[in-house]
């Protein structure tokens, strides 16, 4: 083990160096560029055996990765925002073909207006594409999650592609202390890749991607849904194994000061770190506040969420993207759907949309949110539409947030 100072992008590149993929396809997009610069240096210095394919678009980047993976290679790529949007068609195909591709996604806002900074609009749109999605709070988690993801993706009972996300610039370009495992430890953890079916096994020819009509398509999609369920069961075993080599024990969701918390704020990615700071401050003032960070977003950690919210009196959800026209943001929708029909279905839940286009979320913003949740706890009046945090002119919008009182 060694200690390194790495940005999120460099941490992903360092993990990729140790994974030593057979094929990496890359197309430049900010803020993912630095990751591939770093990895290209590893290739140039002969530190990896990777064949790098410097394609002419992100659509081709994922297509080449799909081809390489189907051929029998361990294949990776990485992208952000518009690049992920251009990959959209192939995201579903990679998942439908059950190819264990691992792809760091450096979260960035989607155009228009064009913006290069971090929010979750890109990967939230891909949440139903059949990819496993793992969010990282800092560079250390980017490094760890990227290595763990290889094992998840390639597990014979899962065989699904995995996105490892990090907040653009906030994590991708911030240098932090990262504990890096020894190369041989990573090598033996991920093992040799020997898929059961591969195009390059010419003695056992297979047909990949045939036309699949009314008589079989549905069974294949049903089996794909089951693979996601298997991932929900099996990721914890792989996390447990990883804790043995790293000493870092990851969970689907990470609670913070939650045992006696009456107010719980749920978040993903780098914001979870800011929330922990504020919780420490407010705890000193006697407020019973706690946090819940979702690490594994797909498959959604429904049982863990229910368990950790069982003592809460009010819940806030931080959504760094808008689900236009929906009743709330995507993370909040998932939380509400999870609690529906349980004894927690009357739990007041408030959605906070924040940080779009890289807008800072400050400790003071978080403090205000906890303050509002405290008032809701006492008064029982819950806004039934999302609250927008840190945006100018919010007070100018007509008062359409009719409030309803929680019974009992």
């Amino acid at each position, binding site marked *: 083990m060694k200690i390194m100072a790495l940005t999120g992008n460099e941490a992903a590149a360092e993990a990729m160096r140790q994974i030593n993929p057979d*094929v990496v396809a890359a197309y430049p997009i900010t803020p993912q560029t630095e990751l591939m610069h770093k990895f290209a240096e590893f290739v140039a210095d002969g530190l990896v055996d990777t064949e790098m394919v410097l394609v002419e678009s992100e659509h081709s980047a994922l297509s080449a990765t*799909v081809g390489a993976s189907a051929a029998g290679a361990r294949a990776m790529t990485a992208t952000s925002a518009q690049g992920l949007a251009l990959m959209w068609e192939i995201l579903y195909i990679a998942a439908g073909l059950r190819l264990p591709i691992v792809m760091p996604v450096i979260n960035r806002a989607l155009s228009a207006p064009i913006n290069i900074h971090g929010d979750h609009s890109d990967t939230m749109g891909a949440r139903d594409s059949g990819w496993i999605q793992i969010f990282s709070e800092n560079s250390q988690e980017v490094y760890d999650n990227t290595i763990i993801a290889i094992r998840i993706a390639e597990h014979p009972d899962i065989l699904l592609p995995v996105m490892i996300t990090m907040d653009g610039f906030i994590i991708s370009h911030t240098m932090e202390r990262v504990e890096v495992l020894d190369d041989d430890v990573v090598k033996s953890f991920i093992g040799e890749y020997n898929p059961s079916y591969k195009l390059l096994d010419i003695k056992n020819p297979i047909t990949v991607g*045939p036309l699949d009509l009314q008589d079989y398509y549905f069974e294949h999609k049903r089996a794909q849904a089951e693979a996601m369920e298997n991932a929900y069961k099996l990721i914890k075993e792989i996390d447990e194994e990883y804790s043995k080599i790293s000493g870092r024990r990851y969970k689907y969701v990470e609670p913070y000061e939650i045992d006696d918390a009456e107010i719980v704020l749920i978040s993903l990615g780098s914001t979870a770190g800011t929330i922990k700071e504020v919780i420490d401050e407010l705890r000193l003032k006697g407020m019973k506040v706690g946090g819940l960070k979702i690490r594994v977003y797909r498959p959604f950690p429904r049982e863990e969420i229910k368990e950790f919210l069982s003592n809460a009196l009010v819940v806030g959800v931080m959504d760094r993207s808008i689900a236009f026209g929906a009743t709330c943001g995507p993370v909040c929708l998932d939380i509400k759907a999870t609690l529906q029909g349980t004894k927690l279905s009357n739990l007041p839940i408030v959605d906070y949309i924040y940080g779009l286009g890289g807008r800072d979320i400050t400790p003071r913003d978080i403090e205000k949110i906890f303050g509002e949740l405290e008032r809701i706890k006492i008064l029982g009046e819950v806004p039934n539409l999302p609250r927008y945090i840190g945006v100018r002119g919010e007070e100018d919008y007509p008062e359409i947030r009719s409030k309803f009182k929680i019974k009992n």
Partner: protein
Amino acid sequence: MANLKELAQREAKFTAGHRACAGCLPAVALRQVTLSVNYPCVVGFATGCMEVVSTIFPYTAWTVPFIHVAFENVAAVMSGVESAYKTLKRKGKVNDDIKIIAFAGDGGTYDIGFQALSGMVERGHDILYICYNNEAYMNTGIQRSSATPFGAQTSTTPAGSVEFGKKQFPKDLTQIMAAHNIPYVAQASVHNWKDLNMKIEKALNIKGPKFINILAPCTLGWRYPAEKGIEIAKLAVETCVWPLYEVENGNYKINYKPREKKPVVEWLKSQGRFSHLFKPENQHLIEEIQKEVDRRWTHLLELASS
């Protein structure tokens, strides 16, 4: 070069029992190409007629490894397959000598797949890319592509009281591929198996990106009797609408020069898609087509003589 008997005795890679139409010449082109490939190979397909008719789950007409991913990306997918092959071969995980072959129709090549194709050849992948060109989007119901000839009727360029069919001459993709300065580019036709076989064998012995554009008539889209396809393909070559030629390391070679170049009207009258051009008010369009065919043929002769 393999003779007809040898070709006929080879084990089929693309087998009988696929679901192509009676008289489908893209299917004949596929059979000719795959019989000419006397190596282990992996084939990739763009979405299109040949992919659809050869792979309906749980059946497959392929006895060699086959992959289809989407419409516009077969060149990128096979770039990935070829890159995987290079690494795995280097690591000793694959020991066979395998040829990588990409197939797409004209829609998947001239139009939606063009960017990926241009990228694939620019990067220098060792792949043979075959376009089976039936001059329109036949799989979706005969819509015009940039390979569709001037004047042709398609579902999206119907002849009406004020319109006469497609208003543009086809993109000259073979020349565009030659302009990429890759080792081998060729045009072939399904009626001349010998010429096609020679080109496939030659291409597979060249390292790097290779592109072969094969004219393969479509009975439904071109509107001719199913048994006439081979004759019509031959007419395209005899009229110089579709010259057979190669560009090897930049050097042009015309493989067949008709002793007497037939007038283009013979090619046009063989197909229903051009029938409206024979109305008196459209006579000038036929003259325009003849002029453009002559211009392109003369230019090709110049390229081949310099």
